[in-house]
């Protein structure tokens, strides 16, 4: 229920807040017809008096995960309680506003001393697991608003996760669109950075429209950045309508794609139910592209300077299609579509196309100057698809994630929200897996994976590979890049990666342990002696006669009439005595031109090639006065039929020691008869 409510697919592409206070809890409970209060229910699963009071819930989560790897981590009820406790943090008769653990303990156990701060570590870990899961869903279950550990005030490094979710109450969020609209009336660029939005709230004296929790956080220097980020996220995903998240309605994201020399729209709908065709108000139609989550959009004016800077929203039956207004458009390669498509944030190491409205141009330029690699062009002129007045930057790559994050923070403005996704846990990425279905942690030696380190305050951990710190990796670690293990040239076998208390293991091998079955072979089919234009999957019928790689033997019959022989270049004389009486002296050609270029370290060839088409005879080589011969389809010698029989006979007799084969003897015999 909590998963559906807070992390359901209606949140796709929009910030989610796991906000639960006493009112929300009650409302949900009534809505779902439940009697027992959440905290009481969770309290029954605590192992009070032990060192690990939450272990039963952790075990439960693991069991659930075994069955459903992609599902929401199954400890939401406990985290909901941790937010409820945070929402109660106001001065009251019993506690100071800053007292968290006493409230948490009281909520779950009825006693404010049972659960202390020393018990809380697993809960902060659960928050990070939740964040990591949400990021791994790539926005399909809402955009994560749980702060990265590095963003939390040091004295709230554990409870800060829960507190961050209690910053904006439901009433605060429903007020947000009104506030945004009042700002947009003044025609400012959009989205505005969070800090500017907070300043506007203060300048306009709008604090009284917000909850007490919000007002408190606004005053607190430590929480203000979190609040700014949160409200900034909401502004960035606001599509101009009156409500932030439509309830009970699926949301389709409207993205920009660049393909076939034009900008166009494409919708992404990440719900379990995939209708092929969806009609929306205003004649807008979505049609599913193959079996992907993407839909072709018809009935909307094409992306332009005007449509991009205004939000778009179209309602339909239980579905809204929406796109927030934005003065910066970032495109990255979309793996599914194979074209450039809009992305929510920069991905370090990848190439992007950045388009900026005139109002955002300065911010974008500053960001690129600070953090992007060089070698991009900012040509705004000739390309017809660039929205009028907008600037284009391509390709934009950020190699250094640390510099990128810093630059985004410094520049803020229109680009401040393009942060790359935060990393919450140590994990392996990429690598050449040998048998992904059998053993997901087995890699080919030389194709070791890269290590993605969790975002953390600098210098909190040391990356150890098999227990050792490796200086070769320092540069990548310092740049916040995925750390490539391939450079270490590890021996085949088991290896371990440890960082800040977390461990991951993997193995490498030189070859597949079990030879994989080839289920699908690609190749060219051959019909009537002609190959297909392009390769396709070969089946039992086409495989035996098909072409795979250089193997075309089953498709061709070897030309029996053509024979190739190699002759020695160091021979003093090479002759070919044909069965019909013709005689050739074979001259060694020069060595192939391309040898010097392609094979500079290889000695000149020792042999040369001689081809014989539809002709038979004996090939004779003289070296240091000795003759050697080889038959080439020799047949029966009939030297009188062509050529110069006398010269032929002389040559054969001179070389009569060339072979002891009967066929040669027949040639010698024929020569003797001619010579008589």
């Amino acid at each position, binding site marked *: 229920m909590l998963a559906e409510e807070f992390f359901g697919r209606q949140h796709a592409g929009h910030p989610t807040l796991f906000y639960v206070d006493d009112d929300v809890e009650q409302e949900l409970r009534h809505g779902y017809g439940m009697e027992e209060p959440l905290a009481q229910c969770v309290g029954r699963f605590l192992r009070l008096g032990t060192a690990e009071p939450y272990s039963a819930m952790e075990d439960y989560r693991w069991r659930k995960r075994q069955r459903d790897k992609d599902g929401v981590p199954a400890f939401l009820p406990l985290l909901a309680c941790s937010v409820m406790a945070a929402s109660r943090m106001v001065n009251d008769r019993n506690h100071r506003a800053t007292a968290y653990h006493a409230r948490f303990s009281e909520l779950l156990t009825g006693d404010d001393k049972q659960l202390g701060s020393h018990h809380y570590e697993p809960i902060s870990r659960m928050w990070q697991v939740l964040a990591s899961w949400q990021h791994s869903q790539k926005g399909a279950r809402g955009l994560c608003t749980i702060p990265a550990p590095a963003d939390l005030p040091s004295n709230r490094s554990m409870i800060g996760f829960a507190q961050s979710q209690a910053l904006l109450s439901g009433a605060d969020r429903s007020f947000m669109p009104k506030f945004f609209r009042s700002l947009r009336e003044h025609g400012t660029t959009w989205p505005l950075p969070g800090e500017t939005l907070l300043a506007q709230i203060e300048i306009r004296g709008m604090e009284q429209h917000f909850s007490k929790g919000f007002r408190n956080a606004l005053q607190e220097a430590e929480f203000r950045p979190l609040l700014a980020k949160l409200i900034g996220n909401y502004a960035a995903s606001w599509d101009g309508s009156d409500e932030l998240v439509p309830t009970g309605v699926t949301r389709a994201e409207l993205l920009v794609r660049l393909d*076939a020399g*034009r900008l166009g729209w494409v919708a992404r709908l990440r719900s379990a139910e995939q209708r092929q065709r969806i009609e929306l108000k205003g004649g807008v*139609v979505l*049609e599913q*592209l*193959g079996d*992907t989550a993407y839909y*072709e959009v018809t009935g909307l004016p*094409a992306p332009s300077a005007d449509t991009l800077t205004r939000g778009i929203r179209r309602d339909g039956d239980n579905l809204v299609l929406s796109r927030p207004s934005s003065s910066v458009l970032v495109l990255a390669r979309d793996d599914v*579509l194979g074209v450039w498509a809009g992305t929510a944030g920069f991905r370090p*190491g990848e*190439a992007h196309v950045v388009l900026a409205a005139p109002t955002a141009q300065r911010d974008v330029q500053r960001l690129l100057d600070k953090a992007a690699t060089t070698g991009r062009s900012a040509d705004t002129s000739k390309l017809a698809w660039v929205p009028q007045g907008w600037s284009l930057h391509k*390709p934009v790559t950020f190699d250094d994630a640390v510099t990128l994050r810093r630059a985004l923070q410094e520049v803020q403005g229109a680009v401040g929200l393009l942060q790359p996704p935060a990393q919450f846990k140590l994990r392996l990425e*990429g*690598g*050449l897996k040998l*048998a992904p279905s059998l053993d997901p942690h087995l890699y*080919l030696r*030389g*194709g070791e994976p890269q290590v993605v380190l969790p975002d953390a305050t600098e210098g909190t951990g040391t990356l150890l590979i098999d227990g050792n710190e490796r200086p070769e990796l320092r540069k990548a670690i310092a740049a916040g890049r*995925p750390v*490539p*293990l*391939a*450079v270490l040239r590890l021996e085949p076998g088991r290896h371990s990666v440890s960082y800040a208390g977390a461990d991951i293991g993997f193995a490498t091998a*030189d*070859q597949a342990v079990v030879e*994989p079955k*080839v289920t*699908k072979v*690609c190749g*060219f089919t051959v019909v009537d*002696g*002609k190959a*297909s*234009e*392009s*390769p396709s*999957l070969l089946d039992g019928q086409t495989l035996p006669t098909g072409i*795979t*790689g*250089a*193997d*075309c033997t089953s498709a*061709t019959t*070897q030309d029996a009439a053509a024979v*190739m022989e*190699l002759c020695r270049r160091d021979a003093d004389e090479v002759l070919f005595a044909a069965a019909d009486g013709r005689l050739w002296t074979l*001259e060694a*050609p*020069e060595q*192939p*031109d*391309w040898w010097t*270029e*392609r094979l500079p370290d290889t000695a000149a*060839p*020792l*042999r040369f*090639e001689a081809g014989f088409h539809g002709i038979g005879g004996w090939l004779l080589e003289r070296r240091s006065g000795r003759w050697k011969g080889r038959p080439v389809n020799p047949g029966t010698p009939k030297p009188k039929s062509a050529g110069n029989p006398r010269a032929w006979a002389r040559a054969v007799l001179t070389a009569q020691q060339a072979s002891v084969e009967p066929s040669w003897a027949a040639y010698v015999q024929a020569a003797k008869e001619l010579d008589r």
Partner: protein
Amino acid sequence: MTGPMSTTEFGGILLRWLSESRSGKASALRDGIRGQAQACGLELEEYADWDWMRKAAALGFIDVDLRADRWSVAPPVLTRLPHADGLAVLTGARTARISTRIEEAAREWMELITVPHWPEAGEAPLPDTLLFQYEDQRTLQEAAKSLRVRYVPCAALQLTELLPQAAPGPESAPPGGSTADTLEKYELRLQRFVPVAGDDEDGLYRWRGADYARLTRVRRNGVFHAVERETGVYLELARHRIGAMRWRPESGKGRAGIGRLFIDRYAPLPALHERAAVLCSGFPPSVGKQAQTRAYDNVPRALAEAIAASLQQNLEITPRPVAATGGRTK
């Protein structure tokens, strides 16, 4: 050539990976190429992963069916290069086992020439070219047997006999539907596809199908026909009588029948034609000055003419280069 891992290893490791995995998704292969390049600190150009896949297929290491998004590794093959004075190339799968056998043979009896690939800037390095210097064709056959690889007498010449004729394929539906705004037409003057609003003239078009797969179609007398992109470009060139192929004989005495085949960059050869040309030397084509052509080495004239004829091209024969000797000096 940066990073502690040499580019030679890069191509070898990828080929080992493909050989040990045997088959998979083409998109996963491209991910592997990009990921490995990142790990090795290689900066690749935008389509370097596609380019690697295409060249590995031309060299006979793998076969790729892009429509099905699948690749499979090709059987290991030993085949001679035409008119190469006793050189054969070892291509196809290179598993750990096969590599070990080759290394052992090279230590004991085989004249093996290992030629590392020299990538252009931004290109992903290919596996080493392995050439075997043999004494006569019988030893070649025996060598294949003892290496336990398939013996193919001369893949380049044999493939040439199988080359399909460039022709419009079966009739197909015209562009339309919701993806009509992805329509592009091949513009010969610009040598690329450009967006167009309608399909009212004959020519080469492409657009996205209902599953967003790219469709390339040639329009003839108002009727659309399915075609591969490469073939489609050649059909357009033929319609306008434009040549994109030249062949230049080698300069050496006795080598006038062998030469270099130049293909304009914008008109890449169809897959099997490319393979036939590449297997003449065992090397991917080299990039010409200003990168406007691709040059294939050691291509017999008859083979070049067969390629040209099957693509409705007139092979232009350029004069032999003057031998380097005897230059004027002051």
